[in-house]
């Protein structure tokens, strides 16, 4: 019976986006699938992946960082030594170490480097596998992108089809859910801007229920939004910011008609539950990288020249990507769905799937990278043996740009052939 371990030490949204890989592993005959994750996400993981064996470790820092150093050391060592001992005692056929983080590299020290994919620790040296190296190269062309859920899933030789990951989205009658994200984040719409969109959606759709979702940190923004809404909508508003545990969040989101959200964990949860998402992607958010997974979702994607940017770097353009969301025409577009009314600087994308996984098709607004993205997906499909693309000059140029000498000069378990057989030359067979 093969045992697989997936190490996913990142946050809420990343945990949900690990689904395609986990489903692919669970689909193997008699496979036992284990997931190592931060202890704060165990309750959620139980709901998302009830048949997966969970291995919580203490990885996140929010609470612990406030403790004195010796106390931090005690907590981290006490909890993690026990968890690591348990992990080291299981003979995993393969370990998928997903996050490019020093914590993941160190955790990989527990395992035979040959069995680890992604981020490997070998005799004190951090090593990045070829698939991840390739991703680093294409991330220089962010607008073409590959959904992170698919990137992780393609560590597997033949992941489950994208259409089988999440149910086709369909409203459940519980009204509109609005996800309030962190106020500091450039990715989120300020309450005033959000209020205009919420008002329009409620008026257009005739929803008689409005639920605000978020953590305690978003309470103030939620109150501000409430103040900005017309009385008729404020009266039906239910503010659940900071009031939901994982179980109740799943229950609430699972009953909604539509979720209006920036790029958040709750957005991925809604997609997981098959609840339609209307996402606002601006600043560093790019739907081809982290858009809602599955069919039936829509993204309002800022497309000004500097998007997508890096959230960690200061914005020198006065957050110009927010402008289209402040334009009253966006409300007009939502009311009429007439592309002529869509303000410039934004594209409306409908979620879609293809042989590689999740993708998006422009419904209104420009998508100048569409052709290049198509060829890029052909290139990746060929690389992954997921299907041949039409021969083209652009495909050849992508191969030249994205492959590096090291990819074929030295053996690599993640190379296009190595990922199937662990060998570096097809002539041997």
């Amino acid at each position, binding site marked *: 019976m093969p045992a697989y371990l997936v190490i996913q030490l990142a946050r809420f949204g990343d945990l949900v986006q690990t689904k395609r890989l986990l489903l692919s592993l669970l689909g193997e005959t008699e496979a036992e699938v284990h997931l190592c994750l931060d202890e704060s996400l165990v309750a959620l993981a139980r709901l998302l992946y009830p048949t997966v064996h969970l291995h919580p470790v203490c990885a996140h*820092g929010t609470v612990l960082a406030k403790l004195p*150093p010796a106390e931090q050391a005690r907590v981290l*060592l006490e909890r993690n030594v026990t968890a690591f001992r348990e*992990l*080291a005692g299981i003979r995993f056929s393969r370990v998928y170490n997903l996050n490019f983080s020093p914590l993941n590299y160190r955790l990989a*020290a*527990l395992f035979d480097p040959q069995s680890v994919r992604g981020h490997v620790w070998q*005799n*004190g040296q951090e090593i990045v596998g070829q698939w991840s190296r390739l991703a680093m190269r294409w991330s220089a062309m962010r607008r073409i992108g590959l959904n992170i859920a698919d990137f992780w899933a393609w560590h597997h030789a033949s992941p489950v089809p994208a259409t089988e990951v999440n149910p086709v989205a369909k409203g459940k009658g519980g009204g509109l859910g609005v996800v309030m994200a962190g106020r500091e984040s450039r990715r989120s719409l300020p309450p005033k801007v959000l209020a205009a969109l919420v008002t329009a959606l409620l008026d257009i759709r005739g929803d008689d229920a409005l639920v605000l979702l978020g953590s305690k940190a978003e309470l103030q923004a939620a109150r501000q939004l409430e103040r900005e809404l017309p009385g008729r909508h404020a009266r039906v508003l239910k503010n659940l910011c900071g009031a939901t545990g994982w179980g109740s969040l799943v229950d609430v989101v699972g009953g909604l008609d539509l979720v209006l959200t920036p790029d958040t964990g709750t957005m991925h949860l809604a997609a997981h539950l098959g609840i339609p998402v209307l996402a606002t992607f601006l600043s560093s958010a790019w739907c081809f990288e982290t858009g809602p997974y599955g069919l039936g979702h829509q993204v309002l994607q800022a497309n000004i020249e500097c998007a997508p940017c890096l959230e960690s770097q200061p914005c020198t353009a006065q957050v110009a990507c927010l402008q289209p969301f402040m334009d009253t025409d966006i409300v007009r577009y939502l009311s009429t769905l007439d592309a002529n009314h869509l303000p410039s600087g934004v594209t409306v994308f409908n979620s879609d799937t293809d042989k590689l996984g999740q993708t998006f098709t422009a419904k209104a607004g420009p998508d100048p990278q569409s052709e290049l993205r198509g060829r890029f997906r052909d290139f990746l499909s060929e690389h992954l043996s997921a299907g041949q693309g039409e021969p083209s000059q652009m495909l050849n140029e992508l191969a030249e740009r994205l492959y590096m000498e090291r990819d074929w000069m030295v053996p690599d378990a993640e190379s296009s052939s190595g990922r199937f057989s662990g060998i570096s030359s097809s002539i041997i067979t």
Partner: protein
Amino acid sequence: MVLPLYGGSLPIGRYCTAALRQLGHLVEVFEAPDFYPSYKALHGLKVGTDRLQYLENSYLQVVSQSVLAKAETFEPDLVLAQAQAPLTIQALKRLKRDGITTAMWFVEDFRLFTYWKGFAPYYDVFAVIQRDEIFKELQAIGVGNALYLPLAAQPEVHKPLELSAAEIRKFGSDVSFMGAGYANRRVAFRDLIRHDFKLWGTEWEGDSVLEPYVQMAGARVSSEDCVKIFNATKVNINLHSSVQAKELVTGGDFINPRTFEIAACRAFQLVDRRILMPEAFADDELATFGSMEELQDKIAHYLAHPDERAAIAARGQERVLREHTYCARMRTLLDFVGERVPGWPKQRASLQAVEGLPPELAQDISALLDRLALPASTSFEDLVWAIRQQQGRLGELETAVLFLDEWRKLYARKTGQDG
């Protein structure tokens, strides 16, 4: 520790590493010899010399960059380079810019290996095995921190052995020499063949008189076998090398490592007198000669007086163990660096590895320190590096310590909680 790609200073670099560890320091070694086969492979290309030189230089740049990368990650208090270490001047400048103190122990004859003039000014400390003249020359090119640091022995390696009868037969003789076939030795040793004589080491080819006495077909002798030869020989000849054969006993200045190594084995040697010898050994701690005639007389004398041999060897060993070990040399070097380099070593805000932990965890960490041969006072940072030097899969505690270290870098430092 930056080892050389190859050569005589390589074992010395390894002895220094062991000594520094014995002194309780955490040492990360740059294993330059691992890079040497690739360098040599370039010579099999059969290309034009300009192309070959370009490739050689490019490769050495890569090697030097590797040293920098290691230094950047390890953040050492000192980069200690052995003679011939693959550190380019560009790399030395970079280390200086990054505030990393550098030292070279130049264990070569400065008159023969003149290239030191090119790079010595780029080191913070330059240690040499000679005095006077080299000090003046170093001063002239701007090297203020020059240190006289004679060679030494490593008592864990160079020690008295109980040899089997077979080993005594193989390695023993009345008189022997272990070393390379330099010009002065080739002439001098012709007079020794009248004894029960064995010649060990390399570069003795083409000498019809001596060739029959060369052991193991002139193959390189391992450090372990050298020690056996020293132990099994009644009179070890130790004639310092010279590239000329006009003057066989040159009376030069530096003392070769063999002098200290044979003495540390409590073996007997007849060594040619050197200018710097009196401060290293008293007359009754070492049997010396100043000419070939004197050597012949003394061989005859000491072969006939085993008790005198034993007494001198015992006193010589005592002196080496007291003063001339690599541990002593490294202590001297570090003291010198501390005196000459202002603010060295930089104080680091560090927790002791076991500090503040509950008893059970502290006990586990203490046991881990024991396993890694680290003192109880080891800092958390040093423990992390010692774990990182381990090969293969790590245990849960080692992994948890590495994980904690990275966790602190990610979270604790951001919130100013770092200890």
